[in-house]
């Protein structure tokens, strides 16, 4: 860092502040915090940056947006809808779009940033999942992450509902339908939320308060907590020389990382702004205002709500029943709330389920390579497949129209695929992981294939293997033991107490299933394989090449 002293005035101010807050010490420590050098550790940052963009553009929108269901006759500058009756919310969104300088652009930035925000949360979570970074001591941060993800989706749904245009109304209608489907309290809950019959006058102002104040406030608090915990616990890191459970290797926060991060922020902003400038999103002026009699095909919720829509579309109504005069529409209830519950509940519970199965109570600061946890990786792949399929199912009318497939056929395809697809994904992914493990073991034992073919005196041809670099050896050797010793007996031949009882047996069985196929690296010494022994020393190799 620079050795020229700062101007006197600045130094004075600095000293004044430092005397009181002792910032220099904490500051220096924090500025030297290291960040790992791997792109997959930047994914969470995309979420942070798009959230900041959402906050800034959102505040801009609040200056003109009028969250009211009051009826007005439009007489603004958008000619096509002049004289049309609509809500003030919709009219003010038209005003933002056509009369506020830069309004349309900011609206599109806000919306694209919302799509990118949730997308980046998803891939960030996938990185954390597949590398096992949610394990102890980071379970709490994982839970905070799940909460952020959940709230982000709800926030998006509510924002989408604000302009009171056609898709807004359709979205709110589905929201209302799902509320109504809740047994016993559904009707009251819906009346409470909407302040009366659908659509009423209350829903937009209420969603507005939630959208601009309550949820962003909670999100902000959660994000701050997320970062503080991260700061305290530091990142995980991929295995490598010098990287241990105790020591983090990377670039210091200041100046190198700060510069990169700043550049990355601008790039993220440029991509979102570029999309907003060139690609039309949510053209509310074309959709027109919502009226309760409107029903249309060809409209979907934003992508992050697509899985809900898909679940509603393909779930059969075979399980609906009526009890004591109350209809219980399981066809809405199960996919509507069950789908959400399964996704968020499953995500939240996973670290604890896994820790219970593996009995792993240790601290982990080194990330797993996904192949070294094949069952987890397989389950993750199955989850991604299920999510992807159900999301596609939410656009089955568009698929049917675009590819000229019958609508019924798509429904049945998705009903079957949603069961088979994840199973296939699990099996295939696990196989691939195990294959990679076997190859790792091969490389560890024999070195890597050099591509040189050598003829032995016996006439046999072999490929010359070379020794891998120490770094590679380190990474390969970092593989955790293949099996968990859960059902081992102690020296007296007594089962451990944890293995007894129905729960214990279930756990033992799960633990067996979880690790049974792992390739054991036990007893494998680096570069001890016979190909190396037959051995191409450097000079021999030369002579072979010379022939």
């Amino acid at each position, binding site marked *: 860092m620079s050795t020229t002293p700062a101007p006197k005035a600045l130094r004075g101010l600095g000293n004044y502040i430092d005397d009181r807050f002792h910032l220099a010490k904490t500051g220096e420590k924090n500025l030297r915090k290291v960040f790992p*050098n*791997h*792109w997959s550790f*930047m*994914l969470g*940052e*995309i979420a942070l940056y798009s959230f900041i963009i959402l906050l800034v553009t959102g505040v801009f929108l609040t200056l003109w947006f009028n969250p009211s269901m009051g009826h007005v006759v439009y007489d603004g500058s958008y*000619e*096509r809808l*002049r*004289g*049309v009756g609509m809500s003030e919310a919709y009219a003010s969104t038209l005003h933002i*779009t*056509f009369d506020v300088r830069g309004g*349309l*652009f900011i609206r*599109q930035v806000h919306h694209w940033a919302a*799509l*990118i925000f949730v*997308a*980046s949360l998803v891939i960030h979570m996938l990185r954390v999942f597949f590398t096992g970074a949610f394990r102890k001591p980071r379970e709490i941060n994982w839970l905070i992450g799940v909460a952020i993800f959940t709230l982000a989706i709800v926030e998006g749904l509510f924002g989408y509902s604000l302009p009171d245009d*056609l898709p807004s109304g359709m979205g709110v209608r589905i929201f209302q339908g799902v509320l109504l489907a809740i047994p016993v309290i559904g009707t009251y809950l819906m009346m409470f939320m909407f302040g009366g019959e659908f659509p009423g006058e209350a829903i937009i102002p209420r969603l507005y308060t939630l959208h601009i104040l309550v949820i962003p406030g909670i999100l902000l608090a959660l994000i701050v907590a997320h970062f503080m915990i991260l700061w305290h616990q530091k990142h995980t890191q991929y295995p490598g020389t010098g990287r241990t459970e105790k020591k983090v290797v990377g*670039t210091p926060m200041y100046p*190198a990382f700060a510069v*990169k991060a700043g*550049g*990355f922020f601008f*790039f*993220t902003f*440029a*991509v*979102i*702004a*570029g*999309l907003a*400038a*060139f*690609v*039309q*999103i949510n*053209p509310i*002026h*074309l959709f*027109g205002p919502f*009226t309760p009699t*409107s*029903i*249309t*095909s*060809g*409209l*979907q*919720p934003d*992508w992050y709500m*697509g899985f809900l829509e898909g679940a509603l579309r393909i779930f059969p109504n075979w399980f609906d029943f009526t009890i004591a005069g109350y209809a219980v529409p399981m066809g809405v209830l199960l996919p509507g709330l069950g789908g959400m519950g399964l996704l968020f509940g499953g995500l939240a519970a996973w670290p604890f389920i896994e820790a219970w199965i593996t009995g792993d109570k240790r601290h982990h600061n080194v990330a797993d390579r996904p192949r070294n946890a094949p069952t987890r990786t397989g389950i993750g792949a199955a989850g991604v497949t299920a999510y992807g399929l159900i999301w596609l199912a939410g*656009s089955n*009318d568009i698929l049917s*129209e675009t590819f000229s497939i*019958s*609508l019924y056929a798509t429904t049945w395809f998705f009903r079957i695929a949603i069961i088979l697809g994840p199973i296939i994904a699990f099996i295939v992914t696990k196989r691939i992981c195990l294959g990679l493990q076997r190859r790792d073991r091969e490389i560890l034992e024999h070195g890597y294939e050099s591509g040189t073919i050598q003829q032995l005196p016996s006439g046999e041809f072999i490929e010359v293997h070379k020794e891998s670099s120490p770094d590679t050896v380190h990474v390969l050797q970092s593989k955790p033991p293949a099996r968990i010793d859960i059902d081992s007996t102690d020296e007296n031949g007594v089962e451990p107490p944890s293995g007894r009882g129905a729960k214990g047996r279930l756990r033992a069985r799960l633990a067996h299933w979880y690790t049974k196929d792992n390739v054991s690296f036990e007893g494998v010494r680096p570069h001890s394989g016979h190909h190396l022994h037959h051995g191409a020393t450097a000079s021999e190799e030369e002579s072979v090449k010379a022939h």
Partner: protein
Amino acid sequence: MKWITARRRHPLAGYVVVIIALAFFGVGYAFVAPNADRAQAQTVAAGSEEAPVDISNGKQIFVQSCASCHGLDGKGTENGPDLTGVGAAAVDFQVSTGRMPSMNPDVQMPRRDPVYTEQEILDLAAYVDQEFGGGPAIPEQAPGLAPQRSDFEDESEYKAAKEQYEAAYEQYIAGGDTEAGMKLYMTNCAHCHSWSGAGGALTDGRWAPEIHEATPREIYEAMITGPGAMPVFNDTTITEEEKQSLIKFVKDLQAEPDAGGVFSLDRIGQVAEGFIGWTVGMSLIVACAIWITAKQRAHD
């Protein structure tokens, strides 16, 4: 078309410059936006109603190319339905949209260029109407196909007819009421043809076609004759005036430019937006993350 130009707005033009500068700031990456202006052929067109119809010519065409499926007596065969009482509007709709003569009686016919000239269609319609019992008449008040250059001997005659047609078209479209039209369309048509008129999938492998190319007259005729899987909306369900409003709404919406950017994603909406968000947005940003961290590694 003046009414488009008058309303075209470019609220975003200025920002493009700023964004390009930003993009340079981020990675110095150049953005070349390909020109995706899709020329949406706007079939706006004319009718020469005055010409007298020639029923015998209509009969000749019917015998030649319709009777094989609909029967000489129009009572239908196993390949085609009974035409008793379908009326001139049905024939005009089916033949001017190129659906008839059908190529394959077992599937829904897509829209094609018409096989016959306007005059021939009128002759045919008059014949069917007279021979097989009358039905809804051709809604002459709604403009049909635009005059074709090939139908005219000299340029000036064509130009005059075209101008006259365009005036009639604008007058018809200007006549309706957007709000009434919007409500009627959203209540009666959008669940099949989608909010934008882009069409949509129906059951049993059928589909509701896009209605962008249909002339006002064809839209009108579709409503009063209910082709294929489409229900009939006769003049009592939706009055003549309401139909005009509905047609105005459809045609205005279609002519409306996409203010939000040069890539309108064909107005497919959220599915396309999500797709672009992931494929373009996320991939660019992740690629940048890879690029930044790779750079870093080279240094240490």
